[in-house]
């Protein structure tokens, strides 16, 4: 003898899209993060704070990251004495290349100065100093 259920099962006619949206959202976030990490975002560091400046990003950019122990260009450490030749080479290949210097806020200027000097020797008229924007 079949037992009667105390409630009748209701047929459903619509698809629950919530799990689909969840999964898609997670995938979007994942690819956004991976994409950003894969980008040449260089060495993570605490940049000096500044209220002014701009956030534009030129098409061709040579990012030089300065840490207490090394100078990193395109994720590879470079000797400071070779830096001006490297910059000159990049500028010769693409004249519209913009040089951006990233240095940690706590470094003494003595660590950053050789990089600025190398830019000067390479004939760079102006550099972009990366900052952390404070509103």
């Amino acid at each position, binding site marked *: 003898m079949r037992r009667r259920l*105390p*409630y009748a099962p209701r047929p459903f006619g619509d698809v629950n899209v*919530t799990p689909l*949206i*969840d999964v898609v*959202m*997670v995938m979007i*976030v994942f690819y*956004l*993060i991976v994409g*950003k*990490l894969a980008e040449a*975002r260089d060495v993570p560091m605490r*940049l*000096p*704070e*500044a*209220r*002014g*400046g*701009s*956030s*534009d990003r030129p098409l061709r950019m040579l990012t030089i990251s300065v840490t207490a122990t090394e100078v990193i260009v395109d994720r590879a450490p470079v000797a400071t004495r070779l830096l001006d030749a490297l910059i000159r080479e990049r500028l010769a290949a693409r004249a519209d290349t913009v040089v*951006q210097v990233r*240095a*940690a*806020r*706590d*470094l*003494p*200027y*003595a*660590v*950053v*100065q050789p990089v*600025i*000097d190398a*830019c*000067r020797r390479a004939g*760079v*008229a*102006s*550099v*972009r*100093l*990366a*900052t*952390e*924007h404070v509103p």
Partner: protein
Amino acid sequence: MRQRSALRQYELRFGPNMTPMVDIVMVILIFFMAGTTIMGPEWVLRSAVPVRSGEGGEGDATPRVQVVLALRSIAGRTVVTGSTLQQASVGEVGPWLERFVRGAGAAEVVVLIQPAADVPYRDVVAVHDVCEHAGAASVGLIDAEPAPGASPP
């Protein structure tokens, strides 16, 4: 009889299902956390790197006034000296330069920052930042004067 009442209890559960909302809120939360930490705001200040302190402005009809601000570290504190500014703090540079720019009239004010080796980089950037805010037409970085008796590099 007992089983029937248990099922009836189950049937009485009602209210909105919070699970999808929690899911989406969590995803949005992660998104913004990642956004602020990984894709954080990286801005830039444009800094001139003149070869000599007097360089710049050739071929431009606009008159220019050049100010050299020397940054020194004295007892762990960065002091700024230049023109009429004598051993001022970084915070005093902005108001002073605003007055200076007003006094310069139509002439463009070019500020050249000359930091000493032991000055923290954040102070160099802070002075650069206030100079831009104060209305300097161009801000550049030049080398510090070599100490008397020091051998050339």
